[in-house]
């Protein structure tokens, strides 16, 4: 469960924060340039955060009580491989499909 006060604090501040990020140069900073080295780091924000965020959910999912579930590992690998070659939608379908299939076959 997500507590009400946590939810609204996060949602409102996140709303303000994401707007300010998007508005930054258009609205406030104008033509000021970001230093090259900061740009280089910004390039990798998504690819740096996403894998870390989901690693524990794949390796030690809460629903299994924190033990490794081979079905989930294989399904995660399937999403990754399909995602490398095709788009995100195919990858999601392949991943969930693999999970259901493995569970149907092996329980």
């Amino acid at each position, binding site marked *: 469960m*997500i507590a009400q006060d*946590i*939810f609204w*604090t*996060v*949602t*409102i501040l*996140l*709303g303000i*924060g*994401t*707007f300010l*990020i*998007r*508005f*930054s*140069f*258009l*609205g406030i900073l*104008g*033509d000021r*340039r*970001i230093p090259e080295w900061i*740009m*280089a*780091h*910004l*390039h*990798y*924000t*998504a*690819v*740096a*955060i*996403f*894998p*870390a*965020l*989901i*690693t*524990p*959910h*794949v390796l030690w*999912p809460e629903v299994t009580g924190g033990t490794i579930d081979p079905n*989930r590992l294989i*399904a*995660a690998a399937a*999403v*990754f491989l*399909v*995602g*490398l070659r095709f788009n*995100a*939608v195919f*990858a*999601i379908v392949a*991943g*969930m499909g693999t*999970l*259901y299939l493995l569970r149907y076959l092996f329980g």
Partner: protein
Amino acid sequence: MTSEMGRIFRRGFLDCAPFIVIVIPYATLFGVVARDAGLEVYEVMAMSVLVIAGASQFTAVALMQDHAPVLIILMASLAVNLRMAMYSAALAPHLGHLRFWLRGLVAYMMVDQSFALSVRKYETEPEMTRQAKAAYYFGTLVAVAPLWYICTFAGAVIGQAIPPVFSLEFAVPVCFIAMTAPMLRSLPHVVAAFVSVVAAIVLGWMPYNLWLIAAGMLAMMAGAQTEFYLKRKVAR
């Protein structure tokens, strides 16, 4: 709006239309997952309207479910959206002339697809007028942004009906992997993702979900340093 502007607006709309096949399932999935995490339908909608950023919303919901501290949730969710600062900088020379409230609208609805299409259009057709540039941008927005609200709503409503046997909680990591895999187009991206995973495992002992921030920073530095290294190698 003159008919010429209408034509350019429609051009933007049509150029962006193919992306609805990505936005519809992605937005629907957010609705489903957020509902599954225990949010009410109106809460899901409040989030989609106030934040209107898929990656940030998925991150925030996943971390709220993990009971991470508010500060960590905000840092991580905002970090994944920092790329928008680059978009803002890239759009400023083209759309910076607009009235203040219109620039606010440009910013509020800024999404990856609109940014990518618009900047490419502005570069290939430098003779475009400022007015035309704005018309094109808003055309791309209208194709995808309203779908974000509609489909998160649909997802939130459907979400209640999906039984636990479908393991929807696993759709969150699946979605993130699906978003990340296509980004691994260069060596620095691969290095960053690899460091991110290893750091998440090695630093997992850190309290208050600080491991996530630490892993993110290490991975960002790894990506940037790899990029610098490759540039130096080419320069030599």
